[in-house]
């Protein structure tokens, strides 16, 4: 009986200690009050949120388990690809690559001058810097699929709309990455160039550009990687590329063909990411 009582009071004080730590009294009678730990409260908050959101989203583990047997045949068919379909895949994949390349290229070019307007160490006009940054935020948070859908309305189905969408998207993320980088560089060499009698343009070309270029190329390659992946989504809204074909095969339940498409996509993405990573390592 006593043992059980002891057990519970021990448990109680351990739990209390987690939330409100006891004052520790050292051998020399000094008192140390450990700070209230945040983590237990955070964990409890997270658990409560989890339960709340489970309610809200209709999360139902049982449902998944019950319907799991519907998942298996689909996955099975995907992993049993119809390789004869491969020839239909080549053109759309090329479309996707072309779209991504062009979109990245144009986006990256537009991003450069804007990034300079947004850099506080180059552009001394605080208002302009702030305004540019705010505008860029809007571009970034606006979902790319919405751009794409509107562009498809304006320019009809096909890769052109997708390319423009990718350009805008690339522009928005590259400009941010760029100005964040530019703000970290040391402008001393720029000052030194001007002291030799060079004009601002020439000083910029010889002192600032070389400091930025490696990062610039790295960012460009990175966004190319991202864009190839996004190209699939764009196809879903008919903005061109392999996504359109994916959409068709899925609506027709042609999972084997989807498997082939995914393989092709995988190969392309893998190659591009590999090349990009190799080059980027050498750049920095």
């Amino acid at each position, binding site marked *: 009986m006593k043992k059980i009582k002891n057990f519970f009071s021990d448990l109680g004080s351990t739990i209390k200690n987690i939330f409100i730590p006891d004052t520790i009294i050292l051998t020399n009678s000094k008192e140390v009050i450990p700070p209230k730990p945040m983590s237990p409260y955070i964990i409890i908050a997270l658990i409560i949120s989890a339960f709340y*959101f489970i309610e809200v989203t*209709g*999360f139902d583990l049982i449902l998944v388990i019950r319907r799991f047997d*519907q998942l298996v045949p689909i996955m099975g068919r995907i992993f049993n690809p119809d390789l004869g379909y491969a020839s239909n895949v080549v053109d759309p994949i090329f479309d996707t690559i072309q779209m991504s390349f062009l979109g990245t290229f144009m986006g990256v070019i537009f991003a450069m001058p804007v990034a300079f307007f947004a850099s506080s160490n180059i552009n001394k006009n605080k208002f302009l810097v702030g305004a540019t940054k705010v505008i860029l935020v809007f571009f970034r948070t606006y979902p790319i699929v*919405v751009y794409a859908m*509107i562009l498809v309305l304006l320019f009809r189905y096909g890769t052109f709309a997708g390319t423009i969408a990718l350009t805008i998207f690339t522009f928005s993320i590259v400009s941010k990455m760029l100005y964040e980088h530019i703000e970290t560089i040391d402008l001393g060499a720029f000052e030194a160039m001007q002291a030799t009698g060079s004009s601002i343009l020439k000083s910029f070309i010889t002192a600032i550009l070389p400091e930025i270029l490696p990062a610039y190329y790295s960012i460009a390659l990175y966004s190319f990687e991202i864009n190839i992946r996004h190209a*699939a989504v764009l196809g879903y809204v008919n903005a061109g590329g392999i996504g359109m074909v994916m959409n068709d095969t899925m609506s027709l339940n042609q999972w084997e063909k989807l498997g082939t498409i995914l393989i092709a996509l995988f190969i392309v993405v893998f190659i591009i990411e590999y090349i990009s990573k190799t080059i980027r390592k050498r750049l920095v």
Partner: protein
Amino acid sequence: MTGKLTVLEQYNNAPKLWKIKLLTFSILLFLLVWSLIGVEYQGFSDLGGEYVRRIIVSMVQPTPKYLFGLEGSRASGVPVLIIETLGIAFLGTLIGAMLSLPFAFLAARNISPRLVNFVGQFGVTGIRVFPAFVIALIFVRIVGLNAFAGVLTISITSIGMITKLFVEAIEDIDKGVVESLDASGCSALQKIRYGILPQLSNKLISTAIYRFEINIKNASILGLVGAGGIGTPLMWAVGAHRWSDASAYLIGLIITVLIVETFSTRIRAKLS
């Protein structure tokens, strides 16, 4: 070494970089021309510039009843949808993180043998192949057009990035701490609890928050396939050309993204 280097010698010593530069330039030029030819401009659609103006005008007049979730439209109002979107991202990230942990430990070079690494990496890459909307469509088929499908989709799509970042965090552990615990006679469990977990937990939480932020942004893609959150009514509105309604949902989405982004950046900065 014979004598001092002369100026003329050094002039001739210049590294001949022009070959690489020419090669790179040619490749880029080729790619550019090839892409330009491939992407066809099919001309402006019949809708034309007038329509563009209409779009813009409607977009700056968001429909109030959706924007504020007023009577009758409570369930499809922005505030409720934001909560649903947060829920999808929250649960999805949570589950995704839990699923990523085993993959990460398998793929970490300092924990598992090379062969196991390869298997782990292969698995993760396999998952990453599937674009988000493909996964979303499949789940919608299975559990229906609802937020639950969204949660499942986000869980799976999060695995790729979270695993990659987890692996980096694990491989960055300072072995010295574990060694010193070992030397003072700690059991494996104690080594994990006091040596490994403290080093990891900050980075892991930071990663999860980062992915959460990205998942909120991807809510619109989910909306395309009807997998819930604010993305779904947004996409329906855009698809049906109801620009004012779309604008209301867009504003909701953008505000949510901004708030999450700000908090995320602050918390992650504090963690590092």
